[in-house]
């Protein structure tokens, strides 16, 4: 396949990269290594600096400090047209005065590939995104999904070694978004490209990424596979942003080997795996909604908490309960809708969880609310 020809797969390295806009530090001393052929996502809330990071890699802006490497080449101050990257914009940025074909063959033409080669590549990529029959259509005549596919095809046709995707699915309907995210991954894997995908949608990142970097306020908090981030979050923010969690405040009442007894507010006691915190230390216990087992009545299970169902929502695959605990903390519990009995509002229930499935964190210096804030 022509678009694969001559492409040496690049890894991308960022070394202590910082970018400021006035007094705002958009990217704060970030170091990352994205491997060859990897599908890598940068995940974070709006304004966390993820798009800035992507634009730094593309050369659309230059870092104030630090170094960026694509392959073995240091690309600081190399203009975007010489970085051999393909960039897919959130708004697609398809040239409105060119049809799909002209958009797609733009890269080969301006790179001087020659008309025949440009046309061959154009046909190849349009075939790949299954839009051959719409090559005469102008962007205004295409649906959102089609525009997205043309945008990806255009980036691929330019012979990009590295595909940068800035929230490429953000402007699409939920249904189309779900279909296209797998398609984009499949294409990059078929072409053995390195892809960096920026998104604020954790389910999207989890579904398609080999690895994910979670960002907050310009910093990378954690890098790992989707499983690692879900199973072993290193911070309260990651535990909340990936998958969502209930956060119960308390202190270490007792330590027993690798386990600790945590006394929650109101004197409730539960066990969790200790992560080096000492007796008396203030902690936050994160328990994912789907980790809880919910039973009717008051059951003396290990690690049990008692409460009353306050709200109930049927979500199709799952049922979501909000349960008011005895200490007045409110926790969210998610249970499969097909596999369990349902509970009514006002009903007394027992919630329990395995200590290994909960995550214990030191209480954040700036408070829990600040730690969880996404803006």
């Amino acid at each position, binding site marked *: 396949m022509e678009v694969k020809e001559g492409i040496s797969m690049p890894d991308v390295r960022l070394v202590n990269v910082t970018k400021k806009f006035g007094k705002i530090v958009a990217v704060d001393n970030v170091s990352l290594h994205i491997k060859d052929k990897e599908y890598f996502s940068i995940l974070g809330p709006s304004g966390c600096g993820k798009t800035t990071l992507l634009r730094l890699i*593309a050369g*659309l802006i230059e870092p104030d400090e630090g170094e960026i490497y694509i392959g073995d080449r240091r690309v600081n101050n190399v*203009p975007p047209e010489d970085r*051999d990257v393909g*960039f897919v914009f959130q708004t697609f940025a398809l040239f*409105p005065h060119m049809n799909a074909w002209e958009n797609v063959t733009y890269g080969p033409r*301006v*790179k*001087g590939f020659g008309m025949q080669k440009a046309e061959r590549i154009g046909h190849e990529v349009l075939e790949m995104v299954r839009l051959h029959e719409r090559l005469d259509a102008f962007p205004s005549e295409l649906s959102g999904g089609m525009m997205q596919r043309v945008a990806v095809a*255009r980036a691929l046709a330019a012979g990009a070694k590295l595909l940068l995707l800035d929230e490429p699915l953000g402007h699409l309907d939920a249904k189309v978004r779900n279909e296209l995210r797998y398609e984009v991954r499949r294409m990059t894997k078929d072409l053995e490209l390195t892809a960096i995908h920026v998104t604020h949608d954790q389910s999207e990142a989890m579904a398609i990424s080999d690895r994910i970097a979670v960002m907050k306020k310009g910093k990378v908090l954690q890098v790992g596979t989707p499983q690692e981030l879900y199973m072993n979050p290193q911070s309260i923010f990651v535990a909340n942003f990936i998958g969502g969690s209930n956060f119960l405040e308390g202190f270490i009442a007792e330590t027993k080997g690798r386990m600790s007894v945590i006394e929650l507010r109101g004197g409730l006691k539960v066990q969790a795996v200790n992560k080096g915190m000492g007796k008396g230390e203030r902690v936050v216990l994160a328990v994912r909604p789907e980790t809880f087992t919910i039973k009717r009545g008051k059951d003396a299970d290990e690690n049990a908490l008692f409460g009353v169902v306050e709200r109930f929502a049927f979500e199709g695959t799952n049922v979501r309960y909000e349960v008011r605990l005895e200490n007045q903390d409110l926790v969210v519990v998610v249970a499969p809708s097909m596999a369990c009995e349902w509970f009514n509002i006002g009903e007394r229930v027992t919630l329990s969880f395995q200590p290994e499935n909960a995550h214990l964190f030191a209480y954040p210096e700036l408070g829990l609310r600040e730690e969880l804030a996404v803006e």
Partner: protein
Amino acid sequence: MPKKFVEKLDRLSSRPMVKYGVYLVAVILFFALILVPPILGIVIKWSSMQEIFGNSQLMNRALDAVKNSFVMAVLVSILDVAAGIPMAWLIARSRSKWANILDTLADVPFIVPTAVLGYSLLLFWYRPEGISAFFGGSLVSPGWFLVALLHFTFSYPVVVRVIVGALLDYKIEYEQAARTLGAPPFTTARTVTFGIIKPSLIAAFILAFARSISETGATMMVAGAFENGPIFIQNTKDVYVGATVFVSLILIVVSCLIFAAVRVLGGKLKLPFKKAWPTVERKISYSSAAMTRNGITLLTFFIIILIPSLFAALPAFKAASTDILHNALLGVYPWGEYWQSLVLSYSLGAAVTVLNVLIGLPMAIIVARKRLGKTSSALNVLVDIPIIVPSVALGVSLRFFWKETLAFIPDILLLVFAHLAITYPYFVRSMSAAVERISIELEEASRTLGAKPFCVFRTVIFPLTKYSMFSGAIMVFTRSVSETGATMAVTSLKTTPVVLVDWVKGKIAATSLEIGLGCGFLILISFIILLALRLIVGGKGRY
């Protein structure tokens, strides 16, 4: 406005009769005052054209004049767009604080009334006080080349303003996408940016073309023996009425045809983006080539545009230190007529601006919001016609119409009608573009929250378009104060540009220092008014 009165207007505006009544009045006034009179004026004098068909010498002179007008207009418009693009790019894309200063300086020829601009260029390029001093003779004598320089100069700020606006509105992501696809900056601009802002480039061309075809007063100052359409009309209007009608008709018809052709074919015109020359374009994209380009752009701007435009200020300063200033302030001959003309010019400008707001605003809404269905689309095209019709031809035909049909109409009212017809499109275009930019959903949200149509206008449309309204008003005002050709054609009343033309052409005895001071007063007053308006709009308005 008293609250009760406003509430009453709000209530009235929800009645369909009132709403459509306002629109109907706006449409009727547009046809009755602006579109129909110039056409009928020509029709009334149709038979007088016989005289030119029997006079081959006069016919040849007329055809030469018309040819000169169109060749000049096309040439100057192309040069203006070519020179305006790099300047607009420098202003819109530069991150330097100098770009702001350059932005303001680029508007200077716009605030200098055209008649003053003509005199200023005459001084700079021809008279010994100007650049000619360095060459031991006159560098550029009055004639076609000086006319070309003049037309290039007065259209330049308009062209730059239109292209800067397009570049600022344009989504920068297209350029970034092209760069990531491998296009160097020059290729990006050529293949993507200009392709997308092509309608604005066409609009800039049309505006420059229309101004060149219309301009009369300043052209007369610098033309020497050169004769184009407007000068021909001025020279013959009292002697050969038929020839005047003939040239007016050709100017109107050909201008409309060119305008239509540019609008229709312009959309189909493909800029050369299919092919790319990576090696060459890469070379001319980066710093040394860009610096050369910027250097040439700035040099052109300062030497061809800015310094000649302001050159008339020098004798004004010189005159200020002599008795001339004293005489001028006392109204000693020839200053009495000058001050009267100044009062007339600015009162006329103010009256025409107010009238434009009153009758142009409903029309802008009709056009922008398609309030009258398909009629709105037709009106959208018709509104532009007065821009294209040469103002001197418009003045001639308006005089024929009003004098033949309603001879009792006082000259001052005739002058108001003429200036209204000339300036109307500037206001309507500016406002309709502003209204179009506002999402219809904002209006709908306001209506669902209980606002009546007039209340929607007061609370949503006006606050969001007031800068454009000020901009439109400023354009109307400056255009009216500068207008010479139609004023001379329509009446014997003298506005300041007409007085200055008389002074320069020697019809009234005035020294060069007196002319300089006269120009200086006009620049100063225009500058103060524009500055005041700019302060009112908080520096955000564009004119």
